[in-house]
């Protein structure tokens, strides 16, 4: 007898069942359309020509989220380039460029298509309707989001037995009530502008073209990795102020798409192919053994 019904059904059934997670990826596209219908992504435009390095944004962020407030008096802090950390969701770094000192604020970029959200297998990292990318406590601590972030933003509390992932949340709790991020409100130099991402791009373009020669003709974050919520304009090339310019314009989740789409295909084709080969080769053996002695 060839493959019996039970094993066939078991094989196909489990194959299809395991294909469900893969195919729910397609479901997400439908959901995304519905979200877009209601709200637009918000963002922050950072004009690095206006930033004076006062670090008020760092203080405001720390105070808003119960983290230790950095010591502004420590002038040595700006001597090194600092990354964000588990106690500092945003930092301002000082760069020496050919146009003098430039300050650049660093924090989560709140990408349109975040790699961390795509990476998170428990939906702890979520892209909110307002555009904020936030972390939640159903996290497993696998740190895949850290591997997947093109900007290396998520920071993990290695020294805690109950570790969290720490990163800028765009003050999302405030946004849903119509507020603004703490850093934007605190900035005295009007270097930070909060608004709809679409409007911010227009504003950035307006600045670039009206104040001709002041800015280089590029909005960082407009297209990088598929577009980010935080947008930057600068007087100097972005490599000089600590930005990676080799990230490309493909969103990071796209990079895994090829593999993810092959999952349902393999789960459908392989069992059929394998059972087929099993049946065919079995028949051959059976014929040999069944009709013994005849030539």
């Amino acid at each position, binding site marked *: 007898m060839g493959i019996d019904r039970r094993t066939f059904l078991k094989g196909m059934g489990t194959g299809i069942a395991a294909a469900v997670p893969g195919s729910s990826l397609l479901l997400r596209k439908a959901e995304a359309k519905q979200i877009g219908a209601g709200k637009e992504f918000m963002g922050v435009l950072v004009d690095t020509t206006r930033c004076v390095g006062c670090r008020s944004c760092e203080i405001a962020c720390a105070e808003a989220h119960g983290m230790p407030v950095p010591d502004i008096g420590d002038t040595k802090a700006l001597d090194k380039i600092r990354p964000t950390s588990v106690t500092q969701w945003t930092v301002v770094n000082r760069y020496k460029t050919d146009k003098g000192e430039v300050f650049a604020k660093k924090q989560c970029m709140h990408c349109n298509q975040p790699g961390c959200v795509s990476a998170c297998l428990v939906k702890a990292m979520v892209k909110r309707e307002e555009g904020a990318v936030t972390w939640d406590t159903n996290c497993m601590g696998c740190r895949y989001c850290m591997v997947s972030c093109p900007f290396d933003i998520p920071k993990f509390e290695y020294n805690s037995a109950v570790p969290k992932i720490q990163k800028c949340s765009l003050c999302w709790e405030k946004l849903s009530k119509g507020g603004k991020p703490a850093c934007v409100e605190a900035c005295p130099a009007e270097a930070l502008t909060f608004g709809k991402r679409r409007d911010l791009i227009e504003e950035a373009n307006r600045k670039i073209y009206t104040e001709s020669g002041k800015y280089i003709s590029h909005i960082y974050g407009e297209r990088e990795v598929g577009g980010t919520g935080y947008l930057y304009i600068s007087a100097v090339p972005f490599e000089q102020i600590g930005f990676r310019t080799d990230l490309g314009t493909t969103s990071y989740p796209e990079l895994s798409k090829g593999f993810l789409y092959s999952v349902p295909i393999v789960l459908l084709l392989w069992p059929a192919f394998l059972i087929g080969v099993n049946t065919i080769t079995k028949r051959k053996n059976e014929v*040999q053994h069944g009709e*013994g002695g005849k030539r």
Partner: protein
Amino acid sequence: MEGFTYTDIFATKGVEYLLVISVLLLFIPFWRMVSRPAKAIYEAAESVVPAISEWFRLPEAKLYYHQGHSWAVPESDNVVRVGMDDFAQKLVGKIDGIQFPRVGSQVTQGEKGWSLLTGSKSIDMLSPVDGKILEINESLLSSPRTIGTDPYGQSWLMKVQAPKITSNLKNLLSGSLAVKWMEGVRESLLARMNYKLGAVSQDGGVLVDGIARNLDQEKWDEIAREYFLIS
């Protein structure tokens, strides 16, 4: 600002295709090398048993071989003498006895003719001709030790009345065809040989009786059946 570099994808694609084709071509000799034992193994196996051409004596007289290693010689008047060839005997080794069908019963070309009994195993062989069994070689039954000592002469197995002798013989091998066939059998035997065979003789071990038994101590009867075309 994104740096734009120009990679001529048309050129790379061309080189890629060329590479794939050459890899596929390279794969053919690679595959052949992987699936066959090296010449040295053949040579080593050959050197183990001296003068391998002596293994299988092909007699001068015109014999007709069945591919299951039995033979037939027409004697007189549709009577055919039937036996098993030297290879069969050397493959199986010492035979304890032979189980024949009754005298007077029919045999069919390509179907079971008789069984070789060795120890606990019984291995069938195919009959080379159709016909009625006239006589079996009684001397083999009384002294089984003589079985296979003179496979083409004194150790003949039975005489068969074969009415369809001419058409039967057309299906059998003789002359240069038989020699070629035997060489093919020898090649296939050498290919199966384990390097262990060489190792055994090198430490002065004794080759056990029966080539098949040296290839596989437990399943040698299956090997024999393979050569005797019993499935």
